């Protein structure tokens, strides 16, 4: 017993080192597993507060480009409205009890945006106080950005599409074939669409959109255009390089999407599975 205690005292630094190393490796492994509750996130009070303070200083610098983006989006929406008004006057009007829209958009400000690592996360300044929940989609006016992963009261952290853990359903605009969107870690403006069946007719420049198969993103949100495509090793599926509409290195404001029919769909799927 004496010897054991002596041994412990003699090697206390090495043991402490091993303990701390093990702890940090544990955190690392945990961060590589998707969808586990994590202790080490930037959504806590101190780090979030630090970014909040930093944003207060730096947000004036890119006001000009933000303004231009907003004007661009306004122009697009205005054009949409005027075309809808023509349609509306031709068709019948909506019953006021069915006004509940399937999707609700909540705006948020990007506090931190990574794109240089292999697993990138984005920090937003809205949290559960603003009814943001895990698994909500995040988009800009141009295209998708990622999916909310963890949420605190005032901040939320988003798994960017530039993350090796992220895999989002996406498909072609002109046909219904789809695949999953992943990132190989090389270029922050190019992502890969995998397992698209070889029957798909592809052309460089075709548009890739979300296909609404999950409850996270509505159908038809833009992702990017085809840059290049080739068959994978099994010769059955295409792997497509997609040039993103979004500039992932320059995100100012984003929208998170709250799906109002999510619970209904999930319940339906659950009852189906039980039968």
């Amino acid at each position, binding site marked *: 017993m004496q010897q054991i205690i002596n041994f412990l005292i003699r090697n206390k630094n090495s043991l402490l*080192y091993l303990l701390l190393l093990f702890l940090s*490796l544990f955190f690392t492994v945990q961060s590589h597993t998707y969808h586990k509750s994590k202790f080490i996130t930037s959504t806590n009070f101190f780090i979030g507060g*630090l970014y909040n303070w930093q944003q207060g200083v730096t947000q004036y610098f890119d006001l000009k480009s933000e303004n231009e983006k907003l004007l661009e989006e306004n122009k697009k929406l205005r054009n949409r409205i005027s075309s809808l008004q023509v349609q509306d006057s031709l068709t019948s009007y909506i019953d006021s009890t069915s006004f509940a829209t399937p999707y609700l958009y909540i705006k948020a400000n990007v506090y931190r945006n990574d794109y240089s*690592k292999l697993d990138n*996360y984005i920090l937003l300044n809205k949290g559960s106080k603003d009814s943001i929940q895990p698994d909500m989609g995040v988009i800009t006016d141009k295209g998708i950005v990622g999916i909310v992963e963890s949420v605190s009261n005032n901040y939320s952290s988003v798994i960017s599409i530039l993350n090796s853990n992220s895999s989002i359903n996406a498909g072609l605009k002109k046909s219904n074939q789809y695949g999953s969107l992943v990132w190989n870690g090389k270029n922050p403006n190019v992502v890969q669409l995998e397992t698209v069946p070889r029957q798909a007719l592809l052309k460089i420049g075709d548009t890739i959109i979300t296909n609404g198969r999950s409850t996270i993103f509505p159908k038809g949100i833009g992702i990017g255009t085809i840059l290049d495509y080739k068959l994978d090793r099994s010769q059955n599926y295409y792997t497509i390089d997609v040039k993103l509409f979004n500039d992932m290195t320059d995100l100012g404001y984003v929208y998170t999407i709250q799906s109002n029919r999510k619970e209904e769909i999930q319940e339906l799927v659950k009852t189906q599975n039980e039968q």
Partner: protein
Amino acid sequence: MNNSTTLHIARFLLLVVVQITVLNQINFLGFLNPYLYIIFILLAPININRSLFLVVSFLLGLIIDMSGDSGGIHAAACVTIAYIRPVILRSSFGLSYEFQTVKLGNVSFGERLVYVTLMVLIHHLILFSLEIFNFSHILLIAKKTLFSSVFTLVVTMLVLVLFRRRDS
């Protein structure tokens, strides 16, 4: 709580804030960031209590990890270089380390460069191996380690020269 302890605590806080708000967002050439915060581990006093030193280094890494949602990669790298620092001190400063008379401000440039280079290289190698976490990307690890190390090294040496205390 004497003057030098206050100095080290202030340095710790300042480095954390600067690293998170400025240096982590440089992204030079799209992927390079200098990790200047390890200057705290480089400049810690030679005769510091080793257990305390390990814990403080771990906390330093953990705060940086928190800010970047990166799990525990900085913590692992920091705690490792804190643990092997005596070995590196001995190999780069030799006898003057044995007599505990080393002050980073007044050793020769060559010795200081060897010390900082070794520490930065080991830190970055562990950091990027864990960040990428995949041995099929070993070239990417090597590339990131090499370029980031050079960047960190240049910034660190500049800061060491610029902020040298005249009185020591």
